[in-house]
């Protein structure tokens, strides 16, 4: 199966065929949720629900209420008539029971599963297409979308040459010719616009594969707070028989494209449509729900399991993060970087850390976790079962990438890279997710245990490296940067192999640097943990945490910084870097930099009017609004700074205004240049005051750099 959609009380499954897609209508699907509670309450509920027209059937099942339950419990099974009606009915029941039974006495399970995913897991239907889905890209600039004007539409990556009528006709023709399975749109709002304009212009342009049904609006837009950041959740639309990917609002599409997305569909059983708008945490939860259901464990609606009571001493020892060495600020030559690959997920698998294994009764008294003395059960845990296949796949894919690259098969390599990238995101998130307050199967003690093991491992690796003739110049959580302390140190590969044998988790030689610079904090008082750059032995530059890597940095500044680092590579001298900077400043002052290289991209963290301080982002958001392109929290704005010290919306110009070079506030960009330069020379002890003093008029040594 490829896609699933809902038509009244029916479900329509879609199967991809060589020519296109074929539907199959299912009329007997009734989604199920569960209620646990005292016998008398369940009996009363059963009586009432069997007479409820929204309920198809009621009965009893025996399931495990928690991952670590030893006994099954009898729970009320409620089958709902409407395929998407579970949440609604569960809310009604919950509100109804409020005040009539003590809260916490009655618990709901398997409630908040997305409808397509629920269908797949409940009916055991994998949403895995028989062939690779075909995609069609439709994109429209933001300004045109806001104006409801389709004449600037691109179809399949090419702008349509013609007016609105011709644009809509081009879409209709392409749909008929290519019969795509996935519509990749720049914004989901493009779909109702296309539908409405096609109707107004009298063009027959069916977006749906079902002639009877068209674009369906699933949810209105709203603003949600997740993981503590404000995100704008746009309106969602479904098209029968096709999946929609809203590129502006699909993290997974942005990170791993179709192949990565399809991989996660296979693993999570979230249909492509639902996976495309899911967060990583959401996909991970789906994988966990699948595993829980396979084990006969109920999926709690609200997370209730709290932390266990701890002594002050244990809390004190446990409430800590990973271990970091402070970087030695400066330029270091011949540095080796060693990394524990996928450290946290491997610890979970190797140490069997899981909500259901930590602190078990059957092995009570055994101290399995360093420092904390927590016990871990010998029974295979839930979390390792979820993560192990991902680790195995990732290793296999890494091998495939290497083979495809050596074999010159670029498309196979790209596909494997996309899948491997998707896995990486899930693996990176799985640890933090254990500590996330609403994670259904999260448990804070697991989070603590993983951290404790990670700290121990990094220190063990450090000890081995020191014994082998190396010293630590920097170290963060899962990585060590080492420099030799003697003429003939043990080879980095040998160190890595020793640590791997000792720890059971592979330590790999990640990079060998000719030189690497660790950058101090802006206060210049110590090394910043994740700001460094350098050049590897094979001639590749590495940049971390500095301006080049920040999304908001204008291209011009990033390019200049890259150039300055190359200068540092040649001369190893701050003055030479500053001499080079003169050239970039001069270009800026001559207005020789095209504005599209000066755009600043910023994400709005709140609504433009809700900013307390008058920041440039707020000004850009307001300006966009006043020009008819409203921006929501979580969305980005692109602008050039026109007058930083000016007032209100006049301080910036937006990308769609196509500002010219004379609109640019040169001094603003000059300051960005100096800041970027500071990052490059501060490891050598120069701060911005020193840079400015060096560049001050009267010093004509720098004139040589004008060319």
């Amino acid at each position: 199966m490829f896609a699933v959609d809902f038509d009244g009380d029916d479900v329509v499954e879609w199967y991809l065929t060589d020519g296109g897609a074929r539907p199959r209508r299912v009329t007997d699907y009734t989604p199920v949720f569960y209620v646990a509670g005292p016998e008398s309450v369940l009996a009363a509920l059963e009586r009432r629900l069997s007479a409820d027209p929204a309920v198809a059937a009621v009965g009893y099942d025996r399931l495990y209420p928690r991952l670590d339950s030893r006994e099954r419990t009898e729970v009320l099974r409620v089958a709902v008539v409407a395929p998407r009606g579970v949440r609604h009915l569960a809310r009604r029941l919950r509100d109804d029971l409020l005040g009539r039974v003590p809260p916490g006495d009655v618990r709901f399970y398997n409630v908040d599963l997305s409808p397509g995913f629920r269908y797949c897991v409940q009916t055991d239907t994998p949403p895995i297409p028989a062939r690779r889905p075909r995609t069609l890209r439709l994109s429209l600039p933001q300004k045109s979308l806001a104006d409801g004007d389709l004449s600037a539409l691109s179809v399949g990556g090419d702008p349509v040459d013609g007016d609105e009528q011709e644009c809509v006709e081009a879409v209709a023709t392409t749909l008929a010719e290519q019969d795509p399975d996935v519509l990749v749109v720049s914004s989901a709002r493009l779909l109702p616009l296309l539908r409405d304009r096609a109707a107004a212009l009298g063009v027959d342009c069916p977006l749906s594969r079902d002639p009877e049904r068209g674009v369906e609006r699933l949810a209105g837009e709203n603003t949600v707070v997740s993981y503590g950041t404000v995100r704008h959740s746009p309106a969602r639309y479904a098209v029968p028989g096709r999946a929609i990917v809203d590129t502006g609002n699909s993290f997974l599409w942005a990170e791993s494209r179709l192949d990565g997305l399809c991989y996660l569909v296979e693993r999570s059983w979230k249909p492509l449509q639902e996976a495309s708008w899911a967060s990583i945490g959401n996909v991970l939860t789906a994988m966990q729900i699948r595993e829980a259901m396979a084990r006969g464990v109920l999926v709690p609606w609200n997370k209730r399991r709290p932390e266990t009571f701890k002594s002050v001493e244990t809390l004190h020892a446990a409430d800590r993060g990973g271990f970091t060495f402070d970087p030695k600020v400066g330029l270091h030559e011949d540095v080796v970087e060693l990394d524990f690959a996928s450290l946290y997920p491997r610890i979970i698998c190797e140490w069997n850390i899981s909500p259901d294994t930590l602190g078990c009764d059957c092995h009570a008294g055994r101290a399995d976790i360093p420092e904390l003395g927590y016990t871990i059960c010998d029974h295979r845990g839930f979390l390792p079962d979820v993560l192990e296949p991902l680790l195995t796949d990732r290793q296999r894919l890494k091998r495939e990438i290497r083979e495809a690259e050596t074999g010159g098969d670029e498309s196979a390599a790209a596909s494997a890279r996309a899948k491997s990238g998707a896995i990486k995101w899930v693996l990176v998130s799985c640890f933090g997710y254990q500590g996330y307050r609403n994670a259904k199967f999260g448990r804070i003690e697991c989070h603590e245990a993983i951290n404790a093991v990670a700290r121990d491992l990094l220190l063990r690796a450090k000890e081995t490296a020191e014994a082998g003739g190396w010293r630590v110049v920097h170290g963060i959580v899962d990585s060590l940067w080492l420099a030799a302390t003697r003429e003939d140190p043990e080879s980095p590969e040998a160190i890595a192999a020793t640590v791997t044998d000792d720890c059971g988790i592979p330590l790999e030689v990640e990079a060998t640097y000719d030189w690497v610079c660790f950058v101090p904090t802006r206060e210049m008082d110590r090394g910043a943990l994740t700001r460094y750059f350098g050049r590897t032995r094979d001639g590749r530059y590495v940049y971390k945490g500095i301006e080049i890597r920040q999304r908001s940095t204008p291209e011009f500044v990033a390019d200049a910084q890259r150039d300055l680092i190359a200068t540092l590579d040649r001369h190893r001298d701050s003055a030479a870097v500053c001499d080079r900077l003169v050239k970039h400043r001069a270009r800026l002052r001559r207005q020789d930099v095209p504005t599209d290289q000066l755009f600043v991209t910023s994400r709005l963290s709140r609504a433009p009017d809700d900013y307390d301080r008058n920041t440039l982002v707020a000004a850009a958001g307001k300006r966009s609004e006043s020009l008819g392109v409203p921006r929501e929290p979580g969305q980005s704005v692109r602008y050039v700074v026109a007058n930083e010290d000016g007032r209100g919306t006049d301080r910036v110009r937006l990308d769609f205004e196509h500002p010219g070079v004379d609109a640019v506030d040169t001094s603003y960009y000059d300051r960005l240049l100096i800041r970027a330069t500071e990052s490059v020379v501060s490891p050598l002890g120069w701060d911005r005051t020193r840079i400015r003093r060096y560049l001050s008029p009267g010093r004509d040594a720098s004139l040589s750099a004008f060319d």
Partner: protein
Amino acid sequence: MGTDTLSACPRLEPGVTLLRRSGETPNALYRLVTAELARRQGSAYWVDSRNDAVTHALYDHAQSRRTLRGLRIARAFTAYQHHELVSSLPGRISSRTSLVVVPRLPALYRDPDVPDGEARTLFEASLTILDALAESLSVPVLVTARAGTDDVFTDALTDAADRTIESHDTREGVAFAGDDVQTLVYHHRDYWQTTIPYWVELLGVAPEEDLAHVGPASITTLDAVAMEGC
């Protein structure tokens, strides 16, 4: 830090005591709890919200690490977890329990991820359990709420509480005021400052007269009192 005195801090009697605190730091909470733990034997339970249970701060305020030996802490991060922890207290607590601490009791119930009706019901149930514990087992229960955040939750809390203590941070440290709290003593790290009412009570100095000599020379006297505790 070293020289905390019990006399400086209001006692926590059996029943529900509401600490309404202004200011940013939970120092008043740490002071009250560590002072009470030093006075009493037995186990104590702390149901935490919003990360008030900072172990460094507890160690910092406790007279010795032994003071904290009987204390057990569990942190809640959602209203459901909070209610779950409070509901588990009756199974843990006996009349020998020295203290129950529930800082920022309403905080998690105000979170937007719990529907209003359910949050109210959960909160009321939690409060009822705490009240019943305090009543039936004669255990002191300390709850806190930020001063100035008045809503249905704090109203219910004020109604349920047997007494209220107010605290505020001053430049000299934490000050307490309340129904049966007369003393106003500031504790500030390693040295002491007092306000006039305290001197008046302790040394019998009349407010209008002789304030000039109430100064450094008296510090030793005060330290001596402080060492004895009460």
